[in-house]
Structure formats: structure tokens, C-alpha cells
């Protein structure tokens, strides 16, 4: 009885979420009450799910089968350490986001709130079910309900043309992806697909090299459509600004990672035997995505759009780590694969927290200042001091600065890269450290983009809004929770890595070296060590001592004076860098990539428009080809019955000729 506890807990939590969504539908007439009741309860349910995830890490994998719509198609659920880890990620993020939503949606009118509450909880339910699904049928149903619910959430403000366009693009790409995943599962499941394609039958699917590669490519395509990898990322930068902040936080923090969960399950557990080229392929796609994402993040002028591109970058980094794990695994170096995979999973969790925090914070800015367009913000640190403080922590974390969490996972990734000389293949081991330099470039430019994000919106003089109000109590507590999570994961990476042990054990048959105390030593203390706590204490001591000494010797109260600014008397907010101005050096250095167009508007201001090269280079030609093909097909349709009879006759003749 005890052994089936985690699965019962998890399914119970998901049912409770569904119930909360439905009760939101009923309570919509009393918006304040509904917000105050449903979302905090939803947050507690999320904690329940987290508990289930934690217990699943140590419990034996468990299975549950229910009768489905057809006798041959059962609903099937399972829980194992891998899904447990992602349930923890989902639960913790959903817990904080629901707290935020309590305050954030309080001003929404009744009917809209009703719809939102239902869709929000169906979205959470869908994500949870994907993690628990144990056959292809359940997985795809959950996957689609997740996609559809998030589509409705993206078009919450459906009267706006931008929202409609973003929603359509999202739906289109989501369905292309789902189709590819379905085909992949069909290959993997073989004959058992008629029984719903149980995952247990897919384990180490006996496929030859060709079909294994096809299944790998199809599922990788499908999942990367959701994960926002190049070139399927184009829905992401449109969908996030359109969706409400808590939804963006969930989509970016959790849904993208669930796509990663799908890749992990298929590639490590189902395909098992990896071909040599898969790892380098994934790594290349990841690196290209990371660099692309960060270069475009740096030139955005909308806070949420910038964060969306930064999500693309972070998914790229996770894919780099995943690709590295695939490479090591394909060469049988399981210990190194465990290191790379630990870096990937760690970064996935970190990304959920800091990106969740940043999206929630930009939601607060939207409510407090009325805009997330960076050329109308500035100086928010004085108007929203607490939000600004939490956002500073999130910014430092995502910029990969020690001792916060983003640095710890990137550090592990670089350590994994530096172990590449162990590979028997010399070309690969020589090229991998170069890829590591690419990762460093992406991380360094991420610092550029994030400094821009924080500096333009929160520092300096106000560009437009001067009377923003601080976020409410619920919002601030949610941001505080995520900040604490970022700090904790940054200071105590060993705790998390020890938790990951069963997950890695399940995937690779080999765990990660158990971490002792405050030290992070992936291989040996001789090889590399990092202690965030000592690092932090050392810096705090040095900082405190220097402050005390200088204050006691030379301390005098500060005098506030107008800024000197090299003696220029006129000082308007327009003299600061604009969001585009801050990115000007990048615009100039990487000019061919951006294809920037400068236009002067009527007010005599320059505007810079950035093209999306992938959209122009791939999607528009594709679009033209599709239109051309449909125009050709249209020639068949002449509207004359005689012609159609002729078509039927000809078809019949051809069939007869073929069949003989």
C-alpha cells in the first residue's frame, strides 16, 4: 500500500486541480472571493504534487491502469524518479505562480476570470498528466490538452489582433509538433500501438538503425517545437508578451521543460542504444539556439519579449548539456553522461525558478506602471523597491553570476565539457572545448541582455511612468518565494545533486558522485571544486569589513546633489540609452544577422526594426511554396461534372493497370 503512495498523491493532486478549475467556473460571479479562495488552494495542491514528486524519487516505480474510452485504449499512468523530478519542478513553480495569481487576477472581470480559472487549471492538469502518462494514448491526450489550454490562455486578450496572431502561430507549431510525436510513438510502439502504445513495450524498442533514427528525429522535432528550439522557436516571442504574466511564467518555466522531459524519456529510456551522431546533432542545435536566442534577447525593447528570447537561449543551453550527455552515453562513458545530464536537469530547475520570477516581476511592472515597453520605463527601483530587489536577484541568477543558481549549473556544464578528452574519438574531443567557448559566449551575452533588462527598466531616470505603485502582498510573497529558491539552489547545489541521484540511476544506470556538505566536487576535489557558501561568506566578510573600516575612518554623511554628467546642464530622460541604444554595439557587430531597418517617424525620432531571419529565411519561402502548390491543385477544380467523371475514370484505369 505504501509503495503506491506517490502515484495516488499525484493523481489526487491533479484531480483537485481539475476540481478547483471547475469551482472557479461556479464562483466566477464573485471575483474577489474566487481569487482569494481558488488560487491559494491551487498553491497548496501544488505543494501536494511536489510531495508526490519527492516521494517518487525514492519509491519504487508505480503503475496504474484505468478503463479508457475504448476497451483497447486504456488510460495508463506511472510514476518513476524521472517524472518525480519534473513533478517537483512543476509543483514548486505552480505553488509560487498561484500565489502570484491570487493578487494578479483580482481586477479581472467575472466572465474572463471564470474562463481563465478553468483554463489555468486544465493547463496545470495537462502538464501533470504528461508527466504521469504511461502509454502513448494518455501522453498525447494530455499533451494536446496542455497545448489547447495554453492556447486559450495565450489568447486571454482575444480582442487584440496581436494576441490572435500569436495564438494562431502557437497552435500551428504545437500541432506540427504533436503530429511528429504521434508518428514517433507509432514507430516506437510498433504493433502495440493498437493497445494504446504502452511505454513498457517501448522500453529498448527493437528497431534497426534507420527506424531508430527516424523515431529519434521525429520525436526530437516534435518536442523541440514545444521547447522552442531553432527553427521552431518563432511562436515563443509572440506568445509570451500576449499571455498574462503568471501564464508566461508557467509556460516558460514548466511547459518548455516538459518538452525536455519527453526527449529524455524517449531518447534514454525508449531508444536506449544511441547512434553516434545524435549527440553532436543535438549539441549543435542547442548551441545555435542558445546563441541565436541571446543575440535576439539583447535587442528587444519589450520586457516580456526579451525574456521569451532568453528562454530560447536557456533551452539551448539545456540542449547543449543534453547533447553532451548523449555523446558520452553513446561512447559508454556513463559517469560523464551523468555529469552532463545532471547539469541539464539542474539548469532546467534553475530556469523554472529564475524565469518564473522574472516573468512574475514583469507582470508586477505591467500592473504597477501600466507598460512593459522598456522605452516607457526606467527608475522603477525607486517606485517599486521590493519588486526591483527580487528582480535584481533574478537578473543576477539568470546572468550566470556566482553564488546564485544559474552559475552553478553552467559551471557543471563547463566541467562536463572539460572532461571531453576521455572520449575515444579525437576529432570530437578536440571540437567539444570549442563548443564550450560558444557556451561561454552565450552566457556572457546573456549577462549583456539581462543587464540591459534590469538597467533600462529599473534603473536610471523614469522615461514615461512616474507614478507606478508597488506590487501587492500576494505578488511580493510569490516573488520572495522564487528568490529564496534561486538563492537556495545557488548556495546548496550539493543537496539538489544528491536528489538527482535516483533519476540519473534510472536513466543511465549510474548516478552522480554523492556530494559532501557545502562542497561541489563533480569528479574529485583535485579536479575541480566550488563552494558557493564559502564563496558567499568570503565576499560578504570582505564587503562588511571594508565597509566598517572605511566608515569608521572616513565616514561622513553623504550629500545629495544633482548628477554632474560632465557638466552638461540639460538632463532629460531621453539622454539615457534607449533600449535599442543599449544594444547598438551588437546591432553593429552582428548587422547581417539582425537585418535592422532604421526609420524616422514624424516626431523626428529614429526607430529601429529588427527582422526575424528565421521567419524570413524559412517560413516565408515555405509559405510561398504551400500557396503555389495549392494554386496548382486548384487547376484540377474546374467545376464541371464531366471533368470530375473523367478524373474518376482515369483513376480507375490507373488502379486497374497497377493491380492487373
Amino acid at each position, binding site marked *: 500500500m505504501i509503495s503506491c503512495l506517490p502515484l495516488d498523491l499525484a493523481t489526487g493532486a491533479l484531480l483537485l486541480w481539475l476540481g478547483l478549475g471547475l469551482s472557479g467556473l461556479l464562483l466566477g460571479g464573485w471575483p474577489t472571493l474566487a481569487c482569494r479562495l481558488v488560487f491559494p488552494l491551487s498553491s497548496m495542491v501544488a505543494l501536494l504534487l511536489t510531495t508526490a514528486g519527492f516521494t517518487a524519487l525514492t519509491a519504487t516505480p508505480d503503475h496504474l491502469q484505468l478503463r479508457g474510452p475504448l476497451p483497447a485504449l486504456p488510460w495508463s499512468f506511472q510514476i518513476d524518479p524521472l517524472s518525480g523530478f519534473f513533478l517537483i519542478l512543476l509543483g514548486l513553480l505552480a505553488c509560487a505562480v498561484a500565489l502570484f495569481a491570487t493578487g494578479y487576477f483580482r481586477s479581472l472581470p467575472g466572465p474572463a476570470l471564470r474562463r481563465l480559472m478553468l483554463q489555468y487549471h486544465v493547463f496545470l492538469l495537462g502538464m501533470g498528466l504528461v508527466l504521469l502518462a504511461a502509454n502513448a494514448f494518455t501522453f498525447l491526450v494530455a499533451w494536446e490538452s496542455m497545448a489547447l489550454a495554453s492556447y486559450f490562455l495565450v489568447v486571454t486578450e482575444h480582442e487584440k489582433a496581436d494576441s490572435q496572431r500569436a495564438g494562431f502561430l502557437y497552435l500551428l507549431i504545437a500541432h506540427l509538433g504533436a503530429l511528429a510525436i504521434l508518428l514517433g510513438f507509432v514507430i516506437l510502439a510498433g504493433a502495440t500501438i493498437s493497445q494504446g502504445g504502452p511505454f513498457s513495450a517501448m522500453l529498448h524498442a527493437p528497431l534497426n538503425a534507420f527506424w531508430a533514427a527516424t523515431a529519434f528525429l521525429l520525436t526530437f522535432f516534435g518536442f523541440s517545437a514545444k521547447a522552442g528550439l531553432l527553427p521552431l522557436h518563432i511562436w515563443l516571442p509572440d506568445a509570451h508578451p500576449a499571455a498574462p504574466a503568471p501564464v508566461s511564467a508557467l509556460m516558460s518555466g514548466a511547459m518548455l521543460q516538459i518538452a525536455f522531459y519527453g526527449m529524455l524519456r524517449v531518447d534514454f529510456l525508449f531508444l536506449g542504444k544511441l547512434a553516434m551522431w545524435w549527440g553532436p546533432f543535438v549539441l549543435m542545435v542547442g548551441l545555435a539556439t542558445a546563441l541565436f536566442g541571446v543575440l535576439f534577447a539583447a535587442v528587444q525593447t519589450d520586457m516580456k519579449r526579451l525574456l521569451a528570447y532568453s528562454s530560447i537561449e536557456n533551452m539551448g543551453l539545456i540542449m547543449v548539456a543534453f547533447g553532451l550527455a548523449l555523446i558520452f552515453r553513446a561512447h559508454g562513458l556513463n559517469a560523464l553522461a551523468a555529469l552532463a545530464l545532471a547539469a541539464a536537469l539542474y539548469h532546467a530547475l534553475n530556469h523554472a525558478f529564475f524565469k518564473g520570477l522574472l516573468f512574475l516581476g514583469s507582470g508586477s511592472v505591467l500592473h504597477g506602471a501600466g507598460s512593459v515597453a522598456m522605452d516607457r520605463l526606467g527608475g522603477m527601483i525607486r517606485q517599486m523597491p521590493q519588486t526591483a530587489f527580487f528582480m535584481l536577484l533574478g537578473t543576477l541568477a539568470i546572468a550566470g553570476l556566482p553564488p546564485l543558481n544559474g552559475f552553478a549549473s553552467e559551471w557543471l556544464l563547463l566541467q562536463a565539457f572539460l572532461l571531453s578528452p576521455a572520449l575515444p574519438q579525437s576529432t570530437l574531443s578536440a571540437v567539444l572545448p570549442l563548443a564550450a567557448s560558444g557556451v561561454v559566449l552565450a552566457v556572457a551575452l546573456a549577462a549583456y541582455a539581462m543587464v540591459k533588462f*534590469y538597467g533600462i527598466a529599473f534603473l536610471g531616470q523614469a522615461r514615461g511612468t512616474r507614478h507606478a505603485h508597488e506590487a501587492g502582498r500576494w505578488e511580493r510573497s510569490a516573488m520572495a518565494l522564487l528568490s529564496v529558491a534561486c538563492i537556495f539552489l545557488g548556495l546548496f547545489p550539493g543537496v539538489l545533486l544528491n536528489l538527482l541521484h535516483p533519476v540519473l540511476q534510472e536513466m543511465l544506470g549510474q548516478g552522480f558522485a554523492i556530494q559532501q556538505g557545502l562542497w561541489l566536487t563533480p569528479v574529485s576535489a583535485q*579536479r575541480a571544486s566550488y563552494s558557493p557558501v564559502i564563496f558567499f561568506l568570503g565576499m560578504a566578510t570582505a564587503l562588511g569589513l571594508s565597509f566598517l573600516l572605511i566608515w569608521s575612518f572616513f565616514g*561622513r554623511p*553623504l550629500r545629495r546633489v544633482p548628477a*554632474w554628467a560632465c557638466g552638461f546642464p540639460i538632463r532629460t530622460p531621453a*539622454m539615457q540609452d534607449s533600449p535599442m541604444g543599449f544594444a547598438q554595439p551588437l546591432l553593429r*557587430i552582428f548587422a547581417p544577422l539582425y537585418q535592422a531597418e532604421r526609420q524616422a517617424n514624424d516626431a523626428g525620432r529614429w526607430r529601429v526594426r529588427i527582422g526575424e531571419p528565421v521567419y524570413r529565411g524559412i517560413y516565408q519561402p515555405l509559405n510561398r511554396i504551400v500557396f503555389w502548390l495549392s494554386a496548382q491543385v486548384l487547376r484540377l477544380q474546374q467545376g464541371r461534372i464531366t471533368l470530375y467523371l473523367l478524373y474518376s475514370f482515369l483513376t480507375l484505369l490507373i488502379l486497374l493497370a497497377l493491380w492487373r
Partner: protein
Amino acid sequence: MTAILLEGMQILLVAFLAPLFAGLLRALRAILQNRRPAGCWQNYRDLYRLFHKESLQAEGTSWLFRFAPYGIFGAFCLAAGIIPILATGLPLAPAADVIALVGLFALARVFQVLAAMDTGTPFATLGAHREMLIAGLAEPALLAALFTASLLSRSTSLSVIVAHLEQLRFALHPSMVFAAAAFFMVLLAENARIPVDNPATHLELTMIHEAMLLEYSGRHLALMEWGAQIKLVLYVAIGIALFLPWGIVPAAEIAALPLTLLALPLKFAAAALILALVETLLAKLRLFRAPEFMATAFLLGVIGLLSFFMLGA
């Protein structure tokens, strides 16, 4: 116990002798340019003067502006404890390896840039985005150089790298020669030296590092200047540790310390001479030539990495 004492001594030595090194560099440069130097101790006089002046805070700045000088100074003091300058195996050394050290420098830089943006003045933000650009392009080159050293010694811990390279004595490593060239270029870029930035400039439009300090005065400015001097010494110390490690011995071998104390000033003086020569011979690059400079550094780092794999040394 000796290790802890040695650690404390190292941090204090770096902190209090950094202005001397920067002063020596200034004096050498003046001599090479046929000017009369103000003496090696000028930086101490400047710091003394600044510390006794009143600090002003620009209107509209937040706590970040006041916090940044201490944060930056604290970060560099911690870095001074991590890098093996007097000896390897110091107590703080395992807390951070080279990658974390680069992260520590990045942390200090981000605080400096955020403080500059906090003032909301045009030149400060101009300096801020330029600084982030230079740093963003320099970091891959820096890590490519550091990776070469760590692949060679199978460790990313600076202490272990130094111990390993020290044992090799005068074995020839072609990869390390390229890495040294790359590292030197990054050193110039990261410390706002010619040809990327000019520490003595008074022309607002060409400034990078100095532009970010425009609003600082009094003790805050003193801390920022002092921090920059410590940073220069730290970079030189990393360079010495990686490429001229001879004489840096484990903390347990206290007997070898006099030799180290004799060799170190010589190495630093040589570094000052080279830096002064480079700064006299080169002219400052236009800002948009700087990416080419970084790309060259990165390329050298890459050649270092590749030659490690091809030659195995």
C-alpha cells in the same frame, strides 16, 4: 595555521601593494614617453586625498549606487584570496576554481555597470553598454586560454594547475604559448588598458571604464579606483600563475617562502615593464575595432586548444 596566516598576508599584500604596482606602471609609461613621472607612490597620495574628501550622491540614484563600490572591492578581495600568488593550496583556494573566478570578476563588473546605469546619465550608460560588450567578447577568449591550461593539468583549480605546471619546470608547451598570448590580450581589454580603452583619457566619448565612474566622488571613488588597481594586479597574478609559475610552492613548504618573496617583485616588475611598453607602442583602437581585437584573442585561444589536442602538449 601557517596556511591561514599566509592567506591573510596574501590578501593584505595584494590590497596594499596594488596602488604601488599601478604607480610603477604609470611611472614607467611616463619615462618611456619622455615625460617626468610623478613617482611610484602617486596612487597612494591620490587615494589618501580621495578618502578624505566628501562623498556626493547624485540625485535619483538608489542603494545600488552606494553598494557597488563595496561590492566590487569585496569581490576583488575574495579573488585575492583564491589566486595562488604566494603559495598554492591556500585555505580559500578550493572555494572557487578558474571558472568561478571568472564568474567573480563578472559579478564585480555587473555591479559596476548597474551602478553606472543607476545614475541615468548619458555617458555612464554609454560606458555601461560598451563595458558589457567588451567583457562579453573577452570572456570566451579568456576561458579558451584557461581551458588550455586546465586540459593540460586535468584540473580547473588554479592551485592544482600551478602545482602541476610548476613540476614540469621548463617543458615546452606550444599550446600554452598561444594561451598566454590570448590571455595577455584579454588582460589588456578587461583592465581598460590601451589599445581597447585608455585609463588616462579625458575625452568623454571614448571612455569606457572611466565613464562609469563619472558620478562617483570621495571615498566611493577611492574604492572604485583602488578596486581597479587590485583587479589589474590580480590579472597579472593569474598570468604569472599560469605562464610563469616557477617559485610558487605549496603553503606547507614555508622554507621556500623567502625565494617566492624575492621572485615575485621581479616578475611583477617585468610585467609592469611589458605593459608600459605595449601601452606606449600601441595606439587606442576605435571602439568598433575592439571586436576584431577580441576575435584575434579568441582565435589565439582556439589555436591553443587545438594544438593541445594535436600535439598533446
